[in-house]
């Protein structure tokens, strides 16, 4: 093991992480690991701390205890290897800028101080837009894009970062079916290229089809591991409690009433109110 590295064989290693807002714990003593090259989902009921977990891993919400390493080093040292897609509702889409401009922002970290994006950078942004099928909207004002198109632009901004590990906060919330398929295809492509993809996900129905690794969260870690082993009626009930009804067949569980969908505040039609952190 090279000197100074902590758990270098893991894409993500989280130990004893605790986050609280005004003495109310939002995340309590979180320990989990994600191996490289998987597509992982983080699921849990409203207020489980899913978004907070991602934000504290990326240093946006300071933890009161615990530490995080990415490929053996803390986040500060690994920034250039991380791609991030925040919740779409976290920004004002009436900001005066174009789709191409937003994608170019993904390069700001690599550009560094005083350097402006040049032709080559804009070319890369165009290619990223093409990857998400948005090349025809490059010069469109972002307020004129549909929700699904805005989400694709956000994804393109992360793709241009050419990271090794991607964090996505509810990328499938409030998007149309074709966009959801397109996003999943792109994420699978990343995983197949050896990248690690970590997604906060709200739709239990699709967890088993989309993902191969699963973290079930409700303030504490309920269960973690390969999807087949972890997606059980028992684990889901532990996380969601009475909010969920399950049909059980040969040890696997199928949610009948999807708790997240039944809850209006996280339904796809109300993305703005679907945020769980203040």
């Amino acid at each position: 093991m090279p000197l100074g590295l902590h758990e270098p064989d893991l894409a993500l290693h989280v130990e004893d992480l605790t986050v609280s807002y005004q003495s109310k714990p939002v995340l309590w003593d979180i320990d989990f690991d994600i191996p490289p090259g998987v597509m992982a989902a983080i699921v849990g009921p409203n207020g489980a701390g899913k978004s907070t977990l991602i934000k504290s891993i990326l240093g946006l919400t300071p933890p009161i205890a615990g530490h995080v390493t990415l490929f053996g080093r803390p986040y500060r040292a690994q920034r250039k290897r991380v791609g991030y897609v925040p919740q779409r509702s976290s920004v004002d889409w009436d900001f005066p800028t174009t789709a191409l401009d937003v994608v170019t922002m993904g390069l700001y970290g690599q550009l560094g101080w005083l350097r402006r994006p040049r032709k080559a950078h804009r070319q890369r942004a165009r290619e990223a837009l093409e990857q998400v099928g948005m090349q025809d909207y490059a010069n469109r004002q972002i307020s004129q894009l549909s929700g699904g198109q805005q989400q694709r632009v956000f994804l393109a901004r992360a793709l241009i970062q050419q990271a090794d590990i991607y964090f996505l906060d509810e990328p499938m919330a409030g998007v149309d079916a074709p966009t959801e398929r397109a996003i999943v295809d792109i994420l699978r492509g990343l995983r197949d290229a050896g990248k690690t993809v970590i997604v906060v996900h709200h739709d239990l129905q699709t967890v088993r089809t989309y993902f191969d690794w699963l973290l079930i969260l409700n303030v504490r870690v309920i269960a973690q591991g390969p999807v087949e082993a972890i997606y059980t009626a028992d684990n889901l009930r532990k996380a969601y409690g009475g909010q969920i009804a399950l049909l059980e067949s040969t040890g696997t569980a199928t949610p009948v009433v999807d708790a997240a969908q039944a809850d209006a505040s996280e339904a796809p039609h109300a993305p703005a109110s679907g945020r769980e952190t203040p």
Partner: protein
Amino acid sequence: MSVHALLTDYTVQNVILGALMLGLVSGMLGSFAVLRKQSLLGDALSHAALPGICLGFLAAGARELGAIMLGALLAGALAALLVLLLTRYSRLKTDAALGIVLSTFFALGVVLLTHIQGTNNASQGGLDAFLFGQAAATLRGDLVIMAGVTLLSLILVTGLWKEFKLVCFDPGFARALGMPVLALEVTLTVMIALAVVVGLQIVGVVLMAAMVIAPAVAARQWCRRLETMVPLAALFGIVSGISGALVSTLGRGLATGPLIVISVSLLVVVSLLFAPRRGMLWELIQRSRQRRRLRHQQLLTTLYRLAERHGDHDFQSEQGLLDSYHRTRTRAALARLEKRGWVESRQQPPQNTTHWALTGTGRDEAARILASLNTGSD
């Protein structure tokens, strides 16, 4: 005064140069404040500056602009810090915190002002001019300070352009990229405070907020990108600054500051009404266009259905029948459709009233509309 005499007049030159720089700097920095939803920050900063002005005067013992500006800056910074602390550590929202801090500081300032006036200090003359500004009192020395602030803001905004842009649009992402978001936000706020302080002399504490908000709001209406919005806001600031200064000179002693604010407000009104895409007039036109298109579609499909019911492609519907069916006069709309070649009119005996029939292309259009309605409702 002739134009030449006007422009060579020492005082007028000072006022125009001052108003120009104030417009430039507040328009440019105001754009970022407005986009960060901190429009009222300028208001809080300027009102909060009043006690600082008075304390600066008391400390210097005379109407010394350096001390007064320093006091204003410190008081403004203290107020901004208080707002930040209140929103973070109490349950107050930003608007309430701004309102409370602004009025408390302003009240304190007015108390101090009356106290100074009561002391019969001979050198206090004109301190109350800071309430509404006194452009004519602008000196060359003041202009040097303003030029310094303007130059500094220009350098910062061009040098940190992409950083400021990302911090305004998506601060979370900016932090994830490793940008010092807090430092950038503080830099922007301090620069706005500086702009407010240099503007107090000309526009005064009461109206200074308009200089921060108005040019940016007006420019936002016309622009699709930040790269054009910020220069346009600066231009709007400059234009209103100069025109306010000129009108006040020509109008024999009308107050310059309020005139500048009125000019920039006019720009806001025009922009809100007439800007393409975002203007109210534009929206009105779009809506009436849409209504007209809907009426056309209704008429075409009515004619189509009537023809179908009678089993006659060339069925001719009487004007009165169409009017009563749509419960409104339809002649104008039908005439427009006729111009497009979708319907044709005939005088039909024996009553000799106007009858309307679909043309071949009109029939195709009506069929297309009906088909699209059906797929839409599936």
